[in-house]
C-alpha cells in the first residue's frame, strides 16, 4: 500500500490517504487531535527543570485534576497551556493550535480558546459582576454588542447561581461568589478548554464543593477542564482522572473512577 497524501482537514484533524495497489482502493485514516495534547514537554528555568518530559492528552468533556506537591510544576504546566511560557522542548497543542511555536501576535487566538480561573479571582473592582463578565466577552470579540454582552453575562451569572447579584461589585460579594463570577467570566465565551489554578484555595469546604459541582457541569457540557489543586478531599470524592506531578515528572495518570493512593502527599 502506498501513501499518497497527508492532508490537514481542519486545525486539529489530519488525514492520511493511502492507495492499495492490489485492489485499486483509497484508504483514508483521520486523526483528530485532543483538545489538549502535550508531547514530551520539558520546561527549564536555567538549570532547574520545572517540567520534565511530560506527555498527556485531554479530550472534550473530560475533567481532570492536576495534583502534586508545591513546586511540582503544576502552575508551569498551566502557563505552558495558556502560552504564558514556551516549552524548552516538546509540543503543546491546544484545540489544534501549536502553542509551542505560536508567535506572540497569535497568542490572543489561543487565549480565546482557553479559559482560566485563578485562586485570587482576578476581578476588576471598579466593575460590577455583570460588567466583569461582559468586559471579558467584548474585549475578546468586538462584534458583541452591549445588549448581547449584558444578556450573555447575566445568563452566565445565572448559570453559576448569581443571577440576582449582577449589579454587585466584587467587594460586596463573598469569596465563593467572586470565584463564581470568575467562573462565569471564564465560560461566557464557551471555550473548548478551561484550566483552573487552585480555584478552591481561598474557599471554605462547602463553597469548594459547590464550585467543583459547577466545574463538573461545565465538563458535562463538552468543555475539557483541567484543575490544579491541593485539595485531597475533592480529588477523592469526585473520582475523576488524576494526573500526578512530582518534581516536574508525570508520575501517575489515573483514569476516572480510581483515585488510588496519593503518594505525592508524603512530599507535600
Amino acid at each position, binding site marked *: 500500500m502506498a501513501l499518497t497524501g497527508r492532508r490537514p482537514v481542519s486545525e486539529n484533524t489530519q488525514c492520511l490517504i493511502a492507495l492499495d495497489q492490489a485492489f485499486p482502493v483509497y484508504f483514508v485514516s483521520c486523526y483528530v487531535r485532543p483538545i489538549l495534547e502535550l508531547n514530551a514537554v520539558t520546561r527549564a528555568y536555567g538549570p532547574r527543570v520545572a517540567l520534565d518530559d511530560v506527555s498527556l492528552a485531554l479530550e472534550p468533556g473530560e475533567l481532570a485534576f492536576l495534583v502534586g506537591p508545591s513546586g511540582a510544576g503544576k502552575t508551569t504546566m498551566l502557563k505552558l497551556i*495558556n502560552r504564558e511560557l514556551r516549552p524548552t522542548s516538546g509540543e503543546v497543542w491546544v484545540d489544534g493550535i501549536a502553542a509551542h511555536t505560536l508567535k*506572540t*501576535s497569535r*497568542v*490572543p*487566538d*489561543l*487565549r*480565546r*480558546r482557553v*479559559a*482560566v480561573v485563578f485562586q485570587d479571582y*482576578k476581578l*476588576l*473592582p471598579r466593575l460590577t459582576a455583570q460588567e466583569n463578565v461582559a*468586559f*471579558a466577552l*467584548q*474585549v*475578546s470579540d*468586538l*462584534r*458583541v*454588542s*452591549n*445588549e*448581547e454582552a449584558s*444578556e*450573555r453575562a447575566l*445568563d*452566565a451569572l*445565572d*448559570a*453559576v447561581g448569581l443571577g440576582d447579584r449582577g449589579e454587585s461589585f466584587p467587594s460586596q460579594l463573598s469569596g465563593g461568589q467572586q470565584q463564581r463570577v470568575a467562573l462565569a*467570566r471564564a*465560560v*461566557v*465565551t*464557551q471555550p473548548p478548554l478551561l484550566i483552573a489554578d487552585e480555584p478552591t484555595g481561598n474557599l471554605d469546604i462547602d463553597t469548594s464543593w459547590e464550585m467543583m459541582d*459547577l466545574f463538573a*457541569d*461545565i465538563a*458535562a*457540557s*463538552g*468543555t475539557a477542564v483541567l484543575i490544579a489543586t491541593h485539595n485531597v478531599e475533592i480529588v477523592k470524592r469526585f473520582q475523576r482522572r488524576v494526573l500526578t506531578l512530582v518534581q516536574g515528572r508525570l508520575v501517575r495518570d489515573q483514569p476516572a473512577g480510581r483515585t488510588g493512593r496519593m503518594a505525592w502527599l508524603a512530599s507535600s
Partner: protein
Amino acid sequence: MAGLLVKGRFPRRHLIQVVASNVFRYLFGGAARSWFRNLGSAAPALSSMTLLLLLAGIVGLTGFALHNIEVVEAGQASLLHVYLRDDAPDAKVNALWDRLAADPRIATVTYTTRAEALARAQRLPGLPALTDATESNPFPASLDARVKSIDDVAAIHNDVRNDNTVDPAYPTSYDQGAYQRIQAVLLGVAVAGFAFLTLLGFVAVTVTINSIRAAIHSRRDEVTIMQLVGAPRWMVRGPFVIEGAITGALSGAVAGLIVFGLTLAAISAGAASFTQFAPGVNVPVAAFAAAIVFATGLGLGSGSSLVSLRKHLES
C-alpha cells in the same frame, strides 16, 4: 451548565456600528478615563513636554529668522557698495561704472544717489533716529556692484579703493570676515539650541515613559484580564498609546498656542522693527510653527508610549 449559555438568539446586526462603538469605548474611552485617573502621574510629563515644545517652537522660529538673516547677510555681503567722493565728476563716475560693468566677476552695477542712500539707511533698525538727528545728508552716493562669487569681493575692493573717484576715507562697504563671523555666530547658536532641545527632549520623553509606566501599573489587573481572555494586542496596547498621545497633543496644543500668541504679540507690538530683526516671521509662518509644535507633541507622546509599552508591558 455551559449549554445554557448557548442561546443563539443574538443575530449580529449593525456589525460595523457595534465594532466601531466597542473600539471607541475600549480604546479611546478607556484611554481618556485612565488619563484623567492618572492625572497626577501625567502632570509632570504634561508640563515638561509643554516646556520642551514651547522652547522648541520659539527656537524653531528664531532659527528660521536667523536663517533668513543669514540669507540677507549673504546677499548683502556679495553686494559691494563703492562709495563715491562728493566732488567726483560725472564723467569719471561713468568711467568707473563702465569698468565695473565690464568686469566678468560682477553681475550687475547700479547707481545710488545720496538721497536714495539716506532713504535706505532710514529703513535699517536703529538708524532712523540717527539720520533724523542731523540736518545734512551724511551718506555718500555709491556704485552698487552685485558680485557673482562672494570670494571675489575682496579683490574688487582692492581694485577700486585707490580710484580717484572713490571716497579715500571709506572706499567700499567691504568688511573683511564680517560674513564669516555671522556664520560662526549662527552655527554656535544652532548647535547650542540643538543640544539644549535634545537634553530637554530626553527629559520630556523619559518623564512621559514613566507616566505611561505608572498608567500600566495602575491598570495591570485590567491588562492581565484582557490578555487572558484573548483581547487582541492592539486593544491591550492601544489605550496606552492614546493616553500618551493625549498628553502629547495637549502639550502640543498649549505650546503651539503660546508660540502663536507670542509671535502675534511681537508682530503687533513692533511691526516695523520685527520684520528687520526676524525677517520672514509673519502670521502664516507662526501658524505653521504652531501646527508643527502640535504634531511634534502628538508624535512625541505616542512614541514615548510605544517605547514604554515595549519596556514595561509583556505580552
